[in-house]
């Protein structure tokens, strides 16, 4: 039995996490994601779970580290400035190979920026964000249904990959309402089964100290550290093959190929329809996984394509991956809005037509 309900984005994210097995949530208030800690404070205790309002985002991610290193299934959320504070923990958890699902309900920056939607944490999200060599798989939903499905799946993926996983959303998805089908609640690992299911997790070694566990990220011996980082990158190499997700449309005869993710991809889809009505064929590459990035999707572009346009709520961050995917085969242009302003589909159409006529001259 699945339920279809009308929900606010942030609440749907929280419910998806609970259904995905989250029993520990640590959060700190920041707009536009406050409905998530509010929902968790109300709902998690009903499942025997634990909600805690931390003293800061630093506190929250380090509590998350402690709970997950102990075998708990942990979900945390924040918005851009708070996510920036959490980068210390993201690096630490990645090195210690501790699972975690993190949602960024992102907003405009830099600095405190604003509270309206943004996508300007793209580079931070996809290149690690904290210190050192590490990677975090990042998924960017463009509807509440997709967000619910990705969060639900990520709760499992984080355990499988023993790595933080980020869901990159924005203030629109967090604040909008949409009907969603909620997945069946996943059975939760009983406390008594922890040692068996997560043999690496801290729980006290019991009677046999040969089974004692240490969760750590410090490696003073350079050779040991290098071997550790190489082992992490062997894992990331597998993730690059297995976790790539992309949606494409109309690439076979597109004059304009848009690249956009999240909310912007939805608006871009509407722009593509409008362009079609005026006789211009346009297609879309929508990366669902931002890291690993679906570079291979660009192989499907044909010589009918005149330009590739990265459409984003940042001053040109996604376009850096577009450049890697396209190489020198096609001209690349940008349509950006920032500061929390979202382009309309009409605006995208007008700017795309302008770019197309410039290219054709």
């Amino acid at each position, binding site marked *: 039995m699945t339920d279809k309900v009308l929900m606010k984005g942030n609440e749907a994210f929280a419910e998806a996490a609970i259904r995905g097995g989250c029993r*520990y949530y*640590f959060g700190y208030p920041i707009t536009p994601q406050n409905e998530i800690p509010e929902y968790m404070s109300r709902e998690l205790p009903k499942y025997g779970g*634990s909600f*805690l309002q*931390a*003293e*800061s985002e*630093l*506190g*929250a991610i*380090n*509590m*998350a*580290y*402690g*709970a*997950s*290193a*102990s*075998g*708990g299934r*942990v979900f945390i959320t924040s918005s851009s400035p708070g996510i920036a504070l959490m980068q*210390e*923990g993201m690096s*630490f958890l990645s090195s*210690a190979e501790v699972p975690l699902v993190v949602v960024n309900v992102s907003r405009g920056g830099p600095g405190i920026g604003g509270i309206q939607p943004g996508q300007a944490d793209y580079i931070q999200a996809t290149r690690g964000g904290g210190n050192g060599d590490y990677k975090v798989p990042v998924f960017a939903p463009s509807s509440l249904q997709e967000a619910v499905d990705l969060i639900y799946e990520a709760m499992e993926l984080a355990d499988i990959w023993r790595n933080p996983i980020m869901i990159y959303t924005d203030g629109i998805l967090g604040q909008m309402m949409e009907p969603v089908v909620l997945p069946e609640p996943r059975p939760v690992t009983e406390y008594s089964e922890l040692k068996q299911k997560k043999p690496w997790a*801290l*729980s*006290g*070694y*019991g*009677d*046999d*100290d040969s089974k*004692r*566990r*240490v*969760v*750590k*990220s*410090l490696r*003073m011996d350079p050779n040991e550290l290098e071997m550790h980082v190489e082992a992490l990158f062997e894992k990331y190499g597998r993730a690059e093959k297995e976790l790539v997700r992309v949606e494409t449309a109309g690439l076979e005869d597109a004059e304009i190929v848009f690249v956009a993710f999240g909310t912007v991809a939805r608006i871009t889809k509407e722009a593509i329809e409008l362009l079609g009505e005026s006789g211009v064929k346009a297609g879309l590459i929508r990366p669902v996984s931002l890291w690993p990035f679906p570079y291979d999707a660009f192989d499907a572009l044909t010589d009918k394509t005149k330009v590739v346009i990265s459409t984003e709520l940042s001053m040109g961050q996604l376009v850096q991956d577009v450049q890697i995917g396209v190489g020198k085969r096609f001209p690349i242009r940008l349509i950006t809005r920032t500061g929390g302003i979202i382009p309309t589909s009409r605006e995208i159409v007008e700017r795309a037509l302008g770019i197309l006529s410039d290219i054709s001259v």
Partner: protein
Amino acid sequence: MQAVFTYTKGMVRTDTSYCPGCTHGIAHRLIMETLDEMGKLGDTIGVAPIGCSVQAHKFMNIDMCESAHGRAPAVATGIRRVHPDKTVFTYQGDGDLASIGTGEIIHAAARGEKFCTFFINNGIYGMTGGQMAPTTLIGQKTTTTQAGRTKEQAGSPLRVCELICAIEGAVYVERVALNTPASINKAKNAIKRAFEIQDRKLGFALVEILSTCPTDWGLAPEDAMKWLGENMIPYYPLGVFKEP
């Protein structure tokens, strides 16, 4: 023959990475010996800090994790949520707890977290090579207060026990020292009381342990013990600040 003194199972049989004369070894042993005597070694999870004792897990024979600078109380908070019936403690130095981790320790105490913190105060940053700590005494020379700490330039040393005992959630706060055999025995009693209070789930317990850093103080180990007694204890008085 009857053994009158044995190695505790709580310590891994290896050399520590600490300098000769450093009291970390004594503090480690006191905590581990206490857990051993209480039969808790297999049911304890410890959190190591950043600082000289970052690798405490190499010496303490229990399940353990590292934590980023100052975050040990947050990490222990997370551990406690998953394991409400295990014994959990943090082991933190003065740079870790009293400087970069003030937010975490204050709020762990405010929440009345049911774990213990053992706070090693030696008045200096040891691992990074002897810089001023928040607990460095006025006049004390460090690599970042080369003419001695002044109140005008760096403010006054922070008294952590006095600060923590003002917080309602902290139920047991005691300051001990490791400079004499008698004070070491008292320190062990304080450690045991902290674990007992955790067992009774009464709230947060903090034991501050005045310690020496002969290397960065530039003193021979015995002189360092004497210096602790003559300089630290007058500013950081020993005793129970709060008890249930």
